[in-house]
């Protein structure tokens, strides 16, 4: 609680300093809008922001993150269980992170048009990576002494996987998932920047083109808030799934 109090005080003073700085130096609004102008822009367009464009972006984020988890876990299993996977799939997964997505946009639009799948594809491309890395590291950290113990109890490979490897891999998997959650919001936004007719990314791009910096800032603020809340949701699920992990740290 005390930590949150400090956070609120720091943010409030930053906002005050920002407001004072802009007003004192007379910075034009289209260069750097003061917080009050951002708030005003939000107040003017809130229904459009919250009920038209936010749902579109959120839907892309959920779909992208869900598919990232499915693809990420599948890739991690292949990498962990087969030598070919480790030698072929892992480098390819890493290579996928070096793709400059903006350069790829004409192709993505050609493939998916302006449909939701182009944005989902970008979201997956950005957010499946931390999930794969987390899951692979988690599986590779399997304690062999536990595997031996399970074998002496007569456990099958499947029982060892379910009762030892999965629980032991969960903390690393959730670390990856938390990174992926925030990245997925960025992914959906970039996807919309590349070509869309709705969504917060599209809306912020239009505001930017019209030099409506206040509206652009309001949109970005809403986006980061969405990412933040998504992160907290994952953390909430994590604390309920692996309470022993947090208890251990105490």
């Amino acid at each position: 609680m005390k930590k949150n109090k400090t956070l609120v005080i720091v943010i409030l003073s930053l906002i005050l300093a920002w407001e004072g700085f802009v007003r004192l130096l007379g910075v034009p609004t289209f260069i750097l809008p003061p917080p009050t102008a951002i708030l005003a822009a939000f107040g003017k367009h809130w229904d459009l922001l919250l009920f038209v464009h936010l749902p579109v972006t959120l839907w892309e984020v959920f779909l992208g993150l869900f598919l990232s988890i499915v693809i990420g876990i599948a890739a991690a299993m292949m990498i962990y269980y087969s030598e070919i996977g480790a030698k072929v799939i892992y480098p390819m997964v890493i290579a996928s992170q070096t793709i400059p997505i903006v350069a790829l946009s004409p192709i993505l639009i050609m493939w998916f048009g302006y449909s939701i799948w182009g944005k989902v594809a970008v979201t997956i491309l950005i957010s499946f990576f931390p999930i794969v890395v987390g899951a692979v590291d988690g599986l590779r950290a399997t304690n062999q002494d536990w595997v031996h113990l399970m074998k002496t109890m007569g456990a099958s490979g499947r029982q060892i996987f379910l009762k030892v490897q999965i629980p032991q891999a969960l903390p690393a998997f959730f670390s990856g998932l938390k990174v992926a959650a925030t990245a997925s919001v960025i992914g959906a936004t970039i996807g919309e920047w590349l070509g869309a007719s709705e969504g917060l990314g599209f809306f912020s791009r239009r505001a930017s083109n019209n030099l409506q910096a206040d509206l652009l800032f309001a949109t970005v603020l809403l986006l980061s808030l969405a990412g933040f809340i998504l992160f907290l949701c994952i953390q909430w699920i994590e604390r309920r799934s692996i309470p022993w992990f947090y208890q251990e740290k105490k």
Partner: protein
Amino acid sequence: MSTLIKFDNISFSFETDRGRTTILSEHDSEIKENEFVSLIGLSGCGKSTVLKLMAGLYEPDSGRVEFQGGNHPRLGKVSLMPQQDMLMPWRTIIENAALPLEIQGIPAKEAEKKVREFLPSFGLEKVGHAFPRELSGGMRQRVSFLRAMLGGHHLLLLDEPFSALDAFTRREMQLWLTAAWREWERSIFLITHDIEEALFLSDRIYLMEKGQRGAFQEIPVPFPRPRSTDLHLTKEFIQLRSEITNLLYQKESYEKK
């Protein structure tokens, strides 16, 4: 007493970075029904490997392992209590102890019910729903022992189970182990580097050396049971202890040559 497990002329070696390391060659040993045998040896001579051979985690390069009168599989038929308690931090005490029953296919609820029956005699009735991290070292070892017992197998392999405990708790656990062993009628094979512990608990002691060739040197423990807690103060005990210390010392100086 009939023989429970027997190593018949077995050899076993390891491939390591520094070449082949031989642990056992042309080796014989055996454990009988309801017998308590300890294995003492200098660290690094491969005591844990002997245990893993008994458990069936390793198979010998040559020779035969006879188990329950034949060449029967040992995995799933022998209980192991590892050096660290190896309790799973994501399982409660009851869930940890129920693990071997669960693996044998007994439904979780039934397994946990069975565990609950045994908690009082292990002094664990108040911590059934706690996680391992909340328990003391001695208590965690008791959970680990209960888990090994609940496997229901006749042969129990204990790998330096008390080495991480303080002297007082260790003594307490030794007394407790003796009582549990008599009550449950099991065969116990204990690895330890504590000579007093081996003398206090066992019927026979095996001495192991690096690159063991042939049988272990065997020392029968002559003290009748039940053994009293001040056994380690008697003249015979001290004499036998120093004899074993000397034998181990000779083995060590021989190794260095």
